[in-house]
């Protein structure tokens, strides 16, 4: 955890150089199996760690991230370091600037040890990348880590780093967090700068951490969003937690439902109040999400449509679908988005947050395209994003935390809060995380 390593650093029991060396050693050992990293920045990380150790010894303390090894998804621009977006289109792209988030993390003293692998163009949830290989789940290498921030989740779950940055356009932080058993925070839309990050859905993209604990997510948010959250806050007395009666608890594995109920019991034992609520139609919201995403993603990649040989069949199919949607559908979807936001905002009069499973099942196998839940067969991508996409349309902050295991595989719980109330969902997450 970031805070415990930060404490050891200040007690003189370790150094940034040691932490970075350990992290790089684990990459050497594990990356051949996991494929979690696209690029390892060993020399730069070692040099920076030495400089930060000297700084701390001289009395300059940048805060809890000072000297802590981290990773960033290979979607964030890093000056002078290849940034691929998991796409052959950008196979040799070397940015001449850092993403805002990278600048802020470095200003806070973090040491980037590498760039993590992802689903092609961040447009998918398996991280089974046709060009750069499948990323593997540290809990079972035959299974996906989730995506699109699969490498970031695998790097955290394998103990390589305490935090790796991801992005979330329709679940791409929360799904891998759930499948790999770590915490993942999608902050409120607009809370964290997107500048210097390859876009996918201009009005759906969110930048956030995948981390070994909820407190690590809070520490990171303070650095990248300028918040002043107490990373150790966990008082949930009087908190009204909505449990949706509709949609979210259908077509899910029994263990997943049981894990949510167990978490709610832990919250109640600490003084929170569980309130049954009915949410507006999420299937409809998901349809709106798909129209917006497909239109925006195809627009984002318009300059590269003609390079068809550089895309996988999966990515091409999605980009082609988006090209065929009429502009009027995009406008209508954005108008419907407003209606749904209004309807969902009414929930905040009754509850302070609501909880759902993150994904309906644990991680599927690599290459698996269909899954059956409660006798209903569904596409893996659509089933896995059912509880995710709508939240991106609404722009609310959402946190996935580890909430148990099913057959040895992690499962996640999602906490959704009102805009700009990350403090509240992090507090609940810290109180009930396993």
């Amino acid at each position: 955890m970031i805070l415990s390593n930060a404490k050891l650093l200040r007690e003189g029991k370790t150094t940034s150089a040691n932490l970075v060396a350990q992290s790089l050693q684990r990459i050497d050992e594990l990356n051949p199996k996991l494929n979690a990293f696209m690029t390892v920045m060993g020399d730069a990380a070692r040099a920076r760690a030495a400089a930060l150790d000297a700084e701390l010894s001289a009395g300059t303390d940048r805060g809890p991230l000072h000297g802590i090894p981290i990773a960033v998804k290979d979607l964030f621009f890093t000056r002078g370091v290849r940034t691929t977006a998991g796409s052959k289109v950008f196979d040799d792209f070397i940015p001449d600037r850092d993403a805002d988030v990278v600048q802020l993390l470095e200003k806070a003293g973090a040491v980037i040890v590498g760039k993590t692998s992802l689903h092609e163009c961040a447009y998918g949830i398996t991280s089974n990348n046709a060009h750069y290989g499948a990323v593997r789940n540290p809990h079972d290498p035959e299974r996906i880590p989730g995506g699109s921030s699969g490498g970031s989740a695998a790097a955290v779950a394998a103990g390589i780093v305490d935090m790796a940055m991801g992005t979330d356009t329709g679940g791409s932080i929360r799904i891998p967090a759930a499948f790999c058993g770590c915490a993942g925070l999608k902050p409120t839309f607009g809370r964290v700068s997107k500048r210097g990050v390859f876009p996918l859905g201009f009005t759906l993209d969110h930048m956030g951490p995948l981390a070994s604990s909820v407190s690590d997510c809070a520490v990171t948010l303070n650095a990248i969003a300028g918040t002043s959250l107490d990373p150790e806050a966990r008082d949930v007395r009087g908190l009204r937690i909505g449990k949706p009666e509709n949609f979210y608890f259908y077509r899910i594995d029994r263990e997943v439902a049981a894990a949510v109920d167990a978490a709610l019991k832990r919250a109640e034992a600490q003084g929170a109040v569980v309130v049954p609520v009915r949410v507006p139609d999420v299937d409809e919201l998901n349809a709106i999400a798909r129209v917006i995403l497909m239109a925006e993603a195809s627009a984002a990649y318009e300059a590269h449509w003609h390079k068809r040989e550089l895309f996988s069949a999966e990515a091409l199919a999605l980009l082609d679908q988006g090209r065929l949607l009429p502009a009027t559908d995009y406008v209508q979807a954005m108008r419907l988005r407003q209606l749904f936001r209004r309807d969902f905002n009414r929930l905040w009069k009754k509850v302070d947050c609501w909880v759902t499973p993150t994904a309906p099942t644990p991680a599927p196998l690599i290459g698996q395209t269909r899954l059956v839940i409660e006798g209903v067969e569904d596409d893996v991508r659509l089933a896995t994003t059912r509880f995710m996409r709508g939240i991106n349309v609404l722009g609310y902050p959402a946190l996935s935390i580890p909430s148990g295991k099913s057959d040895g595989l992690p499962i996640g719980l999602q906490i959704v809060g009102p805009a700009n109330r990350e403090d509240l969902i992090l507090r609940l997450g810290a109180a009930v995380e396993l």
Partner: protein
Amino acid sequence: MTKDWKTIAAAMGVKPASETALAPLDGLESSFRPLVSRLQPDDDFAVLVDDHEETA
């Protein structure tokens, strides 16, 4: 098929990689189209504020 996607694709110069590549649009069309009829003239376009981009 809810729409003749093949013809629409040809008209727009899109050559799908396979016969099935556009199939998901059918499901989307049938779930999205009924929602559009709910819109009233006063229902405005959603604008999400991203301060970072606005102040850049």
